């Protein structure tokens, strides 16, 4: 049933592509398609973390601010001449630490995820601004830019990064005990606890994964812009939630998959790209994308209701 649902989202993506192919000749060119996937990659990676969190019946509003904070940590570190490996490690550790902090407050503090991550959203953003005095950080070594501009054959580096992240995350979610507990906690937390699973520890790690994904996205964003900006990543949480939900993951937790999230992120990317090609104003674009989110979830709800009865 879960497969059938994903299939439906995939059909939606194909139909969308077909419509754009008819409407504009520029859409179905190799360079444009690669461009779409490349532009989708950052949201798609943030959405991986969001999928973990939503599968466990939580929510993470702090991802966008963590992208900014991890980005400025990376940028400042690179600018002051640290080796790239150290700078990357610091950035990823910052993201993971923010996430683990979220998770610890949620599981040990017993606070609602919405409130905790709303707080972190503001704290991390403020920290990023304070750290940089509100100014962008730039002036990196050319070797760092390879992360955005490099290509293997015709495939851009960000797409390769996204593919690796999805493969690894999919493996974790489907083949490891951790992944199993993500679904179990979201499906029935008390039953999972009574089965002897440390729900607190695993919940903390789930938010840690989300923070780590935001940091990976921050690395890619910083490389693409060739600068780290404390105001980066605004509204990323909404795009990530939208991709996850369009991809069929239930906000109630316990049901969904990363394949769906990837398709959901691509639908949003294709839609933006297509509307740009068609010359639709960015104001109107927002309305269209909002409508697509609501319609996608509405269709999902209706289909599921039919399935139940």
């Amino acid at each position, binding site marked *: 049933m879960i497969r059938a649902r994903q299939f439906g989202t995939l059909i939606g993506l194909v139909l969308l592509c077909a419509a754009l192919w008819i409407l504009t000749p520029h859409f179905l060119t190799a360079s444009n398609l690669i461009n779409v996937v490349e532009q989708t990659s950052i949201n798609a990676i943030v959405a991986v973390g969001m999928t973990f969190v939503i599968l466990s019946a939580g929510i993470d509003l702090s991802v966008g601010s963590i992208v900014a904070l991890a980005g400025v940590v990376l940028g400042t570190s690179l600018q002051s001449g640290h080796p790239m490996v150290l700078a990357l490690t610091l950035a990823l550790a910052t993201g993971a630490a923010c996430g683990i902090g979220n998770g610890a407050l949620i599981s040990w503090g017993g606070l609602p995820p919405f409130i905790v991550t709303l707080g972190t959203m503001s704290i991390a953003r403020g920290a990023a601004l304070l750290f940089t005095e509100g100014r962008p950080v730039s002036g990196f070594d050319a070797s760092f830019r390879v992360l955005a501009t490099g290509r293997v054959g015709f495939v851009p580096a960000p797409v390769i990064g996204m593919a690796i992240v999805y493969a690894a995350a999919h493996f974790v979610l489907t083949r*490891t*005990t*951790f992944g199993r507990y993500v*679904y179990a906690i979201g499906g*029935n937390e008390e*039953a999972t606890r*009574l089965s*002897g*699973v*440390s729900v607190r520890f695993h919940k903390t790690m789930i938010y840690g994964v989300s923070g780590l994904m935001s940091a990976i996205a921050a690395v890619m964003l910083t490389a693409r812009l060739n600068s780290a900006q404390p105001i980066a990543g605004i509204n990323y949480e909404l795009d990530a939630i939208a991709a996850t939900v369009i991809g069929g993951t239930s906000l109630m937790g316990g049901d969904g998959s990363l394949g769906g999230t990837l398709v959901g992120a691509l639908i949003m990317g294709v839609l933006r790209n297509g509307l740009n090609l068609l010359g639709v104003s960015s104001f109107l674009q927002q309305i269209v994308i909002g409508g697509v989110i609501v319609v996608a979830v509405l269709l999902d709800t209706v289909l599921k209701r039919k399935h139940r009865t």
Partner: protein
Amino acid sequence: MPVLEMRGIRKEFPGVVALDNVDLTLEAGDVHMLLGENGAGKSTLMKILGGAYTKDAGDIRLNGQLVDIDSPRAARDHGIRVIYQELNLVPHLSVAENIFLGELPMRWGGIVDWRTLHDRTSALLQDLGVTLEPRAPVGRLGLAQRQMVEIAKALAPASARAPAGKAGSAGASAGQAGDAAILVMDEPTSSLTSREVTQLFALIERLTARGVTIVYITHRLDEVFRIGRRITVMRDGRHVTTKPIDQVTVPELVRLMANRDLSEHFPKVRVERGAELVRVEGLGVRGVLSNISFSLHAGEVLGISGLLGAGRTELARVIAGADRFDEGRLLVDGQVTRFRNPADAIARGIGLLPEDRKAQGFVPGLTVARNIALPHGRRLATLGVLSRRCEDDMAAPIIGDLRVKATATQPLRLLSGGNQQKVVLAKWLAGAGRIFIFDEPTRGVDVGSKVEIYNLMNRLTARGAGIIMISSELPELLGMSDRVLVMHRGRIQAELAREDATEERVLSAALGLAS
């Protein structure tokens, strides 16, 4: 002429007949005690009277006239008011707002007329002889006072909405509890202190003096004789008898409630008692359990009986590490133990089949095999990577063994209740458990699956496991237990050997009568 006549009432739920040809007659001014074990059908009958359920067959007559009660609204309009076991009040709103919720007096089509509301509430409370401040938030009241608010709400006039302007004078007359004819109370004293009970009974007397007929469901036999005028006993969804109170005695009541034909067959196999697995000494949880002591041996089924709220489930959860205890000691295999969480208990071989399997027993979206493997993740994984083959290998034989009618890859939510229960059992059988706590193992399970669960218990005891079985079904408890503990209000009221345990003795102890 009787105030109310219910004739031949029948109600079926999928797989069970909850009420079968039940009669109930109320005379004017009656305080009618409705008695029976858990699951006898008392609450179902009252839900039909109150319009919360619709009956499948039978007639209801009010003052001789055939009526059709198809909704709570219809019941209210006929003067029938039901106070259910769980109180339904909004804690942040005031006494007055709660009483007239949904019928707040308005003026100019939407502005609450506070003066009328408070006048009306004062009049109603005065009329009932209850001293309560209409403006007090319900959340700050004690349980007995909340009960009073609930009663006042039930008795508040059905259409109190007076036209704006005439507020003052209309308020006083509309405030009288005039149009309630029948008031049903479902175990109203279960959480009251004895002083509060006295207050409640005084109110009941005032109500009957004014011609309100009362139906009162309780498990406390002392109350039956204190305020009851007539009794009706129900058993297994059937009407057993209706009598005036002065024609029954306590032992007779107990016999009427318990007696049944033991037609069900229990395939009990007795096993030699082995070493002591669990020992509990003076265990207490503040406000819930006190001074609980018993032991469980290998090869034994220890039955625990008691009414709802006696503390059985709480005891089970403490032993399984799900909740903490405040006093006493818990010994497993002779070692003093304190579990921090269920994982600790599982590591010592303890498995809990929770009472509420939907809320606590399984993950609906996961497949059969994955639910079974859930407690065993660490054992099935290498460096955190699960082996699907190991999971399936673990699940397959148990699924076959328990005759679960499903494949290993079906999500659990698609299975029937009985099959879900078998999977929850299978979860624990797959491990190296030796101590099993089964809380209502056959609730909502069909007869065939019940027997399979009993057989499984036999196999477990044969291989040296000890089982604690909590059950509200007395025949099952007596049929499968080697010993029976009876709990009453958080304490152990009696311990009976299999030979001595009869339905009457267990029920008497559960009601707090004998020891």
